[in-house]
């Protein structure tokens, strides 16, 4: 059982929403051979709640495209946030369909159910997330620093 799990979330066919999956793949390449870490491409949200709640899992690092409400950041901007036991859940909304049960909901639900896993979320501000859209150039450029930041967190978690 890995102590650290990296979870890439997103839809590979929906423009910048693919960034979590692409980053997870790159992280897996960089960490190849390292013990106690596993990398999972989780596709969409509802599966994430299970992935955060494995016995023995110490740290979960979620990578996803995000959109910050209010003052929007530039596409490709990186956001890192940590949700500890006493941390506040991410903003959640009222999903209209089970397709809408996403990362914020999953992280919040895992915390509400008393998961002891420390959760770090790496977000990339998304431009377009339309089905069939290409990756925004700024989001593509953000991939390398994003992967670096995730690797730093993995190494930190392993001590």
């Amino acid at each position, binding site marked *: 059982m890995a102590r650290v799990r990296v979870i890439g979330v997103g839809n590979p066919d929906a423009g910048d929403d693919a960034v979590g999956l692409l980053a997870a793949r790159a992280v897996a390449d960089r960490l190849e051979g390292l013990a106690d870490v596993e990398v999972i491409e989780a596709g969409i949200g509802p599966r994430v709640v*299970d992935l955060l709640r494995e016995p023995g899992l110490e740290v979960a690092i979620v990578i996803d495209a*995000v959109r910050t409400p209010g003052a929007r950041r530039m596409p490709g901007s990186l956001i890192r*946030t940590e*949700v500890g036991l006493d941390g506040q859940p991410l903003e*959640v909304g009222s999903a*209209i369909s089970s*397709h809408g049960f996403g*990362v914020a909901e999953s992280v919040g639900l895992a915390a509400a159910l008393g998961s002891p896993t420390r959760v770090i979320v790496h977000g990339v501000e998304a431009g377009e997330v339309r089905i069939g859209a290409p990756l925004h150039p700024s989001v593509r450029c953000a991939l390398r620093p994003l992967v670096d930041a995730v690797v730093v967190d993995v190494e930190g978690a392993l001590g």
Partner: protein
Amino acid sequence: MTHRSVEVPVVARVEGEGALHVRVDDGVITRLELEIYEPPRFFEAFLAGRNVMEVPDIVARICGICPVAYQSTAMFGLERLFEVELPSGVEALRRLLYMAEWIESHMLHVHLLALPDFLGVDSAIELAQRGFKAEVERGLRLKRLGNELMAAIGGREIHPVNPRIGGFWRSPRRREVDAFVPRLEDAAREILDVADLVASLEVPVLTRDAELVAMVEEGRYPIDHGDVASTRGRRWRADEHEAVTRELHVEHSNALHSVMADTGEPYVVGPLARVVLNEAALTPVAREAKARLGLTLPTVDPFASMAARVVETALAIEEALRLIRAYEPPDPPHAGVVPRAGRATWTTEAPRGTIYHRYDVAADGTIVEAKIVPPTSQNLRHMEHDLREFLPSVLDRPDDELTRLAEMIVRNYDPCISCATHFLRVEIERGDEG
């Protein structure tokens, strides 16, 4: 280093928004438009020019929650066109895979979306915080059972890669599926507790007429074979679907709206329609769940959909148990496939309702044209219809409550929308108060 929590900035997962526009003038709704984006249109265009053998992998990517529905419909349709004789056991294994998808999808909806609605809280998170932790855990456990069974057969749980035209790439070993028996036996007990919980809820009632549409099959609950039938006595084959129903472009939506071709009236597909049209084929635990739920059939009340999902989950658990106990790994796992020119059509029952596919194929196996009609586009017009019926009785409520009620109406259908579409933005314009 000591552990500390940092302040969490507001970050939401990317979401495309659905939108509902409502305009009220002098207490009367004068405009009601539901705008939800569903993704198959892009994939129809994307499929043209591809080889048929790529179809299962491409259509699996339309949806992260119901990939099996898209795959099965395409595979059975194309196999019939190519006159493929499936090896013994392939159909049973596909049915098992499909049951796993029903369990996962229904339990996700019931516990994470419907229960919070009917218990009057905003989300499953609040539910867990307000004394329903054990119930949420149970729901997640049942959902996860479906996920893991899908992964065991499909090779991967989000977009299964094992299914192919002609069968499967590899037959799961007996012990791989046998391992699920004890968990499914537990689940068959737990689903009755879920039924008791749902039965204890106060659920609104919406009285309005509707034509319910689902597949029917002699002697068993329909999943991937059979005709399509309606509560008004219609019955048709998959190759007649585009003649019996019609898709309309509507100005306010990217999605197409389905109606009956002759009357122009909307219809409803989904778990409730299936239960109503196939009550006689319910299995013992499903019947027990139905009794405990107090679900009286037939009914057309959309708020009974949650109960129908619980009944169907019981059925799916029993079917999965039966199929696993009788499981013999298909050998060979798949038949040879020789494409030929022609038109393939098929329907199956996705968790959210009847799904229809058509493929026009050239002699070399190239897709000339693909048509995919998912359950949600067939239900969209009825969602608007329900909102029109229901909202006038609650127009005096404050906007936030009205928004919540409108969302509940839409959630009854659990629309299969782009997995990047998340929230419903409800805009209520009150002309009489300006």
